[in-house]
């Protein structure tokens, strides 16, 4: 990748190599070792691990709840994230920089605080929360609250990924398509969609992966009622607290496998995106 001359002039010194070894040891001890422990405890019983999860109706329900809410959030992120990026890049709207800064807020704000905000807004004692309860559709301590919490923490993913791709597209292409008589829908499908689809898709998948593990905001908002609003990460906490580390490790392994598969998939799609750009 790097020219040979560079490797020669900047060949790693002894200090450089020692520092590198220290860094590698650090990351192996801090990241790899703990994960090995989880894998060890999680799959020590082999296939029984999955049987543990499949055998417990609470675990099954928690996993299913996490899966469908995260998938829904991933899909919503792709749709609305792309639309948001479009509006931010293409339209001259007032207060654009404020909106842009606001979009980064979920990256900086503790997810627990995000949960507290939602609890204030829709809690049973708030005006809005009371209205929703009267409507027969409570938000807090119910599934809509989980979806809202996951949306809050994953809002920036797709917007931030699609924005740069959109702003790189040559407006001339759109003009050309327009003069050739293409309808706006045709222009979107032929000019924009091929360019932004990989970015939107991969970041949507990453937001799904992020949502699978979300804990802080959900634990406040969901109420954690087994079979109804107990998500997989909160289930893990419950198992740890009730002294069942094997069950917790088993569920962790399932979640980790899914998250890694999703991130791998996103990585592959991003690779395709790079290929398209070159």
């Amino acid at each position: 990748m790097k020219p040979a001359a560079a490797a020669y002039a900047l060949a790693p010194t002894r200090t450089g190599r020692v520092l590198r070894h220290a860094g590698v040891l650090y990351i192996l001890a801090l990241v790899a070792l703990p994960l090995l422990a989880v894998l060890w405890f999680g799959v020590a019983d082999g296939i029984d691990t999955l049987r543990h999860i499949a055998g417990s109706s609470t675990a099954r329900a928690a996993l299913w709840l996490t899966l469908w809410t995260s998938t829904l959030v991933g899909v919503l992120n792709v749709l609305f994230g792309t639309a948001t990026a479009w509006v931010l890049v293409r339209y001259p709207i007032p207060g654009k920089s404020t909106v842009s800064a606001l979009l980064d807020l979920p990256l900086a704000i503790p997810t627990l605080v995000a949960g507290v905000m939602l609890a204030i807004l829709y809690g049973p004692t708030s005006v809005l929360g009371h209205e929703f309860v009267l409507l027969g559709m409570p938000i807090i301590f119910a599934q809509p609250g989980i979806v809202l919490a996951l949306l809050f923490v994953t809002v920036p993913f797709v917007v931030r990924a699609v924005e740069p791709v959109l702003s790189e597209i040559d407006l001339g292409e759109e003009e050309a398509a327009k003069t050739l008589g293409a309808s706006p829908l045709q222009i979107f499908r032929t000019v924009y969609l091929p360019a932004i689809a990989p970015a939107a898709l991969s970041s949507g998948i990453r937001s799904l992966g992020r949502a699978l593990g979300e804990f802080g905001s959900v634990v406040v908002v969901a109420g954690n009622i087994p079979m109804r609003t107990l998500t997989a990460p909160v289930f893990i906490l419950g198992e740890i607290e009730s002294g069942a580390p094997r069950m917790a490790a088993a569920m962790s392994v399932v979640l980790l496998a899914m998250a890694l598969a999703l991130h791998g998939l996103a990585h592959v799609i991003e690779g395709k995106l790079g290929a398209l750009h070159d």
Partner: protein
Amino acid sequence: MTDLTLSSATALPTKAQAAQKLVRERLGQRALVAVVGLYLAVVLGAPLVAMVCELAQLGAGDALLSLLRPNALAALRMSLVLSALSVVINSVVGVVLALAIVRHRFALRGVVNALADLPLAVSPVMVGLAFLLLFGRDGWFGTALDRFDIKIVFGFGGLLLGTLFVALPYTVREVAYVLEELGTSEEEAAATLGASPTQIFWRVTLPNIRFALGYGVLMTLARSMGEFGAVLVLGGSIAGQTQTATTFIHDAIEERATNSAYGMAVVLALFSIGALLSLEWAKKRRKVTR
């Protein structure tokens, strides 16, 4: 493409049709802006506004005064100490690892690169569990730690390990990205001019990555202050001892001490907004330097 040319040749739009089309496009734009605005207002805006309103109702003074109690102060101090340590350690490790990943070629390079991203894919609760399985009573090193009377779980060490784990990727990623973009030409020039590797690092490499490093530091700070799942599991949230700002909020909610919960939540929110504003600034500067 050919059928497009044909259709435009056979039916050139009249002036009225063109005007109508423009109106339709404008309407479409407005509708899209409205939809996006509504969406962002529901998902992001409303919760933020709700928090500000609630605070105004409670009285910001009361909420903040409730934070002057010893437990709250201890929790806040614990979070600050953990974040400061996390920033220092992750900055050093981040720069070393980024340099290793981008500039060095070694056997474990791919593994290290993947491991540096891994904390982003892991649920914080699972991080807590992982260290519990290593250092807890029945963990791999549990008995060894017991013998030497070292307390990691439910102690400061556990809190620090959890925080270091979740905040690891930010500096590495930012610095590695910029190093990759920069290339090696400036460093090579310095080397040809006779600069030692140490001089090259302090005079060329570090100034070039300073905004990326600053960005990484701010993200590390925000992430460390806000970490909840891992420190809840590892610290057990013992008031006055292993309670952090986030676990303090959690406990206050469970005890229905809304004043202290909201007060601390506001402190954390203000802190992250401060970090965010600096982040926006660093982002702009980072673009300028490139």
